[in-house]
């Protein structure tokens, strides 16, 4: 199995977002491998461990992405590549870059996180699949290989769907797909010796002006907290009733 995983480095979800000068400040922020990508990497490594093969991880963006790639290598990926760019491309451009990278090799399986915790568009995986002309199933919760097909499950709000997909295909990983392993220290040290290729857009035969976003960020602001407060009045019974009614509205809408 030749497996390719698309990863990104994102803010730790515990970080407080600070908007400064019209953009999200990256000062003093702890970066991690995008949590959904952890499931993707873990799945790829599990497939490799069971069926053999090789796992490549690729990211597009700034130098700092190396840390995410090192994490993936420490989790068991074999090779990494960083396509260097300033991090300003949107999903349209990123998908084109990742697809160009994917075309350089032949892969049976492609994984991505179902979304990133920063951009949260959930578009990159499906867009890459579209570029490559391979089937895609988003937000999978179970993955098995049966011959030359993958059998995957996804949660459909109330029921689950099982799909059998011919390979090559792309899957995006949802939380719960597996239990991602820690990059243990011995593996971090081993990862240091694994190849990490640095590429430019030109190396992939891409012209940046043709990757520029179809979207433009007009404004960036912190959403105001809308906190409503209401003091319940009346007898304890009346207050309890009002509270119960209020809670019911949240738990059982309509």
């Amino acid at each position, binding site marked *: 199995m030749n497996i390719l995983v698309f990863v990104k480095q994102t803010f730790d979800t515990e970080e407080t977002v*600070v908007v400064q000068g019209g953009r999200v400040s990256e000062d*003093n922020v702890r970066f991690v491998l995008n949590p959904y990508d952890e499931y993707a990497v873990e799945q790829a490594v599990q497939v490799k461990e069971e069926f053999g093969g090789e796992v490549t991880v690729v990211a597009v963006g700034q130098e700092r992405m190396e840390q995410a790639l090192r994490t993936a290598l*420490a989790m068991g990926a074999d090779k990494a590549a960083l396509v260097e760019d300033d991090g300003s491309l949107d999903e349209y451009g990123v998908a084109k870059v990742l697809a160009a990278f994917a075309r350089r090799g032949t892969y049976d399986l492609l994984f991505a996180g179902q979304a990133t915790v920063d951009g949260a568009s959930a578009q990159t995986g499906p867009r890459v699949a579209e570029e490559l002309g391979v089937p895609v199933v988003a937000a999978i919760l179970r993955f098995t290989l049966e011959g030359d097909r993958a059998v995957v499950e996804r949660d459909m709000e109330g029921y689950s769907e099982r799909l059998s997909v011919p390979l090559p295909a792309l899957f995006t990983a949802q939380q719960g797909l597996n239990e991602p392993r820690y990059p*243990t*220290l*011995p593996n*971090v*040290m081993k990862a240091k010796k694994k190849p990490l290729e640095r590429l430019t857009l030109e190396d992939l035969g891409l012209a940046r002006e043709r990757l520029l976003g179809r979207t433009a960020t007009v404004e960036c602001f912190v959403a105001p907290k809308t906190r409503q407060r209401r003091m319940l009045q009346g007898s304890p019974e009346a207050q309890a009733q009002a509270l119960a009614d209020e809670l019911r509205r949240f738990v059982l809408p309509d």
Partner: protein
Amino acid sequence: MAADQDKAPRGGSFLLEDVNPAQVFTPEDFTPEQKVIAETTRRFVDEEVLPNGEQLEHQDWDLTVKLLRRAGELGLLAADVPEAYGGLGLDKVSSSLITEALTRGGSFALSVGAHVGIGTLPIVYFGNADQRARYLPALASGEKFAAYALTEPGSGSDALGAKATARLSPDGRHYILNGTKQFITNAAFADVFIVYAKIDGEHFSAFIVDRSSPGLTTGPEERKMGIKASSTRQLILQDVHVPVENLLGDPGRGHVIAFNILNIGRHKLAVGCVGGMKAAIEASVRYAKQRRQFQRAIAEFPLIQQKLADMNIRTFVTESMAYRTTGDMDRELAALGGSFDGPSAARAIAEYALECSADKVYASEALDFVVDEGVQIHGGVGYIQEYPIERMYRDSRINRIFEGTNEINRLLIPDMLLRKAMRGELGLFPAAEALQRELLSGGHLAADGGDPADPLAAERQLLAQAKKVFLFVGASAVQKYMQALEGEQETLAALADIVIEIYALDSALLRAAKAVWRGESAGAGDSARNQVEMVRVYAREAMERIDARARQILAGMEEGDALRTQLAVLRRLTRFEPVNSKALKRAIAARVIAAEKYVS
């Protein structure tokens, strides 16, 4: 310059030389691997240690051991053990990042710290091949745990005054150990103890003692003020037979081991304090944003902001010092060709013994300051156990006591400096003479303003003046007291304070200067601003303290006209223009409040 960057500076040389910022290691220089290692540790703490915090505080040693083993599986116990013995042989920066990240999880960090540090390192640095092979793999993997037994009821600071004895058995196969060791961290569950005892009541030596040895028992758990998740007990040795193969190092040379290990322990303690400070800031700023009085969040009050700014600045300074020392150690070790064990590695690290003592004193007092202000920000609930700041406050206090009390460490600093100067390793005397000539010539002491484009020009000048103050009062004290200096503890401690302040300011300033330089080359510029502002405030506060110490030293030595003359010189050296630290601290606090954590 590339060659220059690889060369580590001599210990203590910061007092005399202007260092190129490019040569100083800063937290901005962590490699991706080092960050991944910190991240793994952090995740372990967040997911496995913190959720068990309450139970660990109640001294569930089975749980402690379970978590220690888990830490072993992740490789967190193997950093300082060479690869040849089942360890990872990591650089000291990586190992420090582990230590720092662990302290977020409360005093469980000390169970790890005592094991990987003072417990295991004596064997790493001073064990022979056989001892290393027998013990290190199990200690690195977390199969076995170690403790360090130096202190006795009758000998703490005076460690060499130990009464524990060792005598050779008639058949020459064992040393028979007797004595009582006091306050031994990890005693509840350690499998291996590094025990110091005097052979024939005379020759201070170190031994590796297995817990299973008949005659070895531990006392009841001490009821401590804080660090309750850490075990502290007496170790009682009654005719314990230790195989002669377990004598560590040469007989009568135990002090070399003890002092080298304490030195490394001091460094680890400083790094650990950095983690503690960050946790306290986080808890305090979150509380300050959420607690409302007079219809606003208390974080909006300038006095609370001032506290947050001060806490952030101290943390920044401590972090700058501790990692600078770490980086120097790594370069010194790298110069040995990457051999991270054996006595030569210990010697390489000991080059920075003075810096380790400075870091220890500074960090432990900075942590006390930060947790104290943290409690204050919390008001009444800061005094209540439900809030983590209450535990942090109690946990902090021990750091000024163990690994050599801060008094002992202060006394060590001028002592080490003088020795280095006598051995000709550090040109203190020539520098003092040159300064003397400069002072006599009556010239314009305050150097010219420096490069106007340098945002830290005034602070660099302050630092240069501070170094002169040290030479001036230091030389005066040496001349005045000569051999009697040893008895002048107040003067020695005040001199140590000046040295520590200089190392602190020097490290913070170099770090900010490096950030400016990096920011410029990266075309950014904003990232360094916070650091520059912190240094602007801090440099002046440090200079005020240095001035106060210097006056105190001079006033203790001279009187009348002689004193007035010296004070006049001092005034020329310590003059500076204030900055608007009120505004700067508000700006720094605003960043802490926005990020809800320590910001560098």
